[in-house]
């Protein structure tokens, strides 16, 4: 059995390729999260603004993202855009773009919830102390909002990581695709190869996501008891 495990995971280039696939998976997630945060915060602030048109537009966008599977969005943008636009979009670009579209929607909603959850009298007490609106935003509202935001952002990160295997549908060679390729080759010789390879990928995802989930829960508890 050990031989079989060894052959499936470590023979030839197998392990290096799996790690490369994992690297791509994490890289896509990382880029998407960073972009989502960068774009989601201003979007969230706009959403909590008074402008009715802006609010309505974001609500519509949010609802669309909420009901549309990420996979369908990947498919739509990859196959339609690359076929009908002059620019040939790489699957990598489409992946990061779609994940960011999703992430921005989630982030914006998190930011909106965090900002509106801060009681109005916090702002009023700031005014009573003679602080300017800008000072109030940066010294009072934002520090509290970020604490409320953090668990949600980390949660979004694990969900991004768990969603990356979808990129395999638009022909990217991520962790998942590498696994499939290895099984196709070694599976001829060793029937158990699929068990080891898919089992390994399964465990790999767990090992990455579980600590992040624990951290998010730790922050949530800390915030609640504070």
């Amino acid at each position, binding site marked *: 059995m050990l031989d079989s495990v060894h052959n499936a995971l470590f023979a030839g280039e197998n392990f290096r390729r799996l790690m490369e696939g994992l690297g791509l998976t994490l890289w896509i997630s990382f880029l998407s999260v960073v972009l989502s945060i960068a774009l989601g915060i201003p979007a969230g602030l706009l959403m909590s603004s008074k402008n009715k048109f802006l609010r309505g537009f974001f609500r519509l966008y949010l609802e669309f993202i909420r*009901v*549309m599977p990420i*996979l369908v969005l990947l498919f739509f943008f990859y196959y339609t855009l690359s076929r009908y636009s002059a620019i040939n979009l790489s699957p990598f670009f489409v992946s990061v773009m779609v994940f960011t579209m999703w992430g921005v929607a989630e982030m914006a909603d998190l930011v909106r919830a965090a900002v509106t959850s801060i009681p109005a009298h916090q702002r009023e007490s700031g005014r009573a102390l003679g602080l300017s609106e800008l000072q109030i935003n940066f010294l009072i509202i934002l520090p509290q909002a970020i604490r409320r935001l953090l668990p949600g952002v980390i949660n979004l990160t694990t969900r991004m990581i768990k969603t990356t295997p979808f990129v395999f549908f638009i022909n990217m060679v991520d962790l998942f695709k590498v*696994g499939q390729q290895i099984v196709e080759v070694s599976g001829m010789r060793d029937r158990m190869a699929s068990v080891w390879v*898919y*089992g390994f990928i399964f465990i790999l995802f767990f090992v990455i996501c579980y600590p992040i989930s624990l951290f998010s829960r730790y922050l949530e508890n800390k915030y609640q008891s504070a």
Partner: protein
Amino acid sequence: MDTSFISQSLPLFAKATWLTLVLSFFGVVFSIVVGTFCAIINFYKIPVLRRIVYAYIEVARNTPLIVQLFFLYYALPRLGMVLDGKTCAVVGLTFLGGAYMAEAIRSGLQSVGRTQIETGMSLGFGKIKLMRYIIIPQALAVALPVISATTIFLMKETSVVSIVALHDLLYVAKDLLKEGHALQSNLMLVVCYLILILPVSLGFSYLERRSRFAGFGA
């Protein structure tokens, strides 16, 4: 747009939409059943079982469905257990969804205050009746937003089932893509998912508003 394409592909999309609907239905219903069991085990802190439930929830929540499905479909047969594509899809959805539903229902159960339970006890309610008439109705109302989010999440996750050789919407769209109808087939794909999930989303929003109205929230 080419109308003949739509009339030709419509039956294919309709069939695939139906498949997605059926898979989602069973996936969600079984998830709620599994989730309720797990949540009750957690709520009553049943020894040993709650450790198993904890491990299950963490594993299911921290691995992607697509990997779970691949394992079920391609690895399990090597271990002597062959499941067909549809069974795999429903088992996978239930495995994933059960964990999310368990968390939703657990948070609902925990929201019912200690003295509410004592009040029920002081009126002579036994364990089971207490659950049925006092705890569960209140817990459900609190858990509803998360249950609705999980239901929609699971319906969206069904979009991956073509990897276990099911002819779902994505499979149909991909097939038509090869014939060079990218825009039309992709638009149909989007429309089908809107038809599937939007009513569910709106329905849950309505339910949430109603349950809030029916005497909850101070």
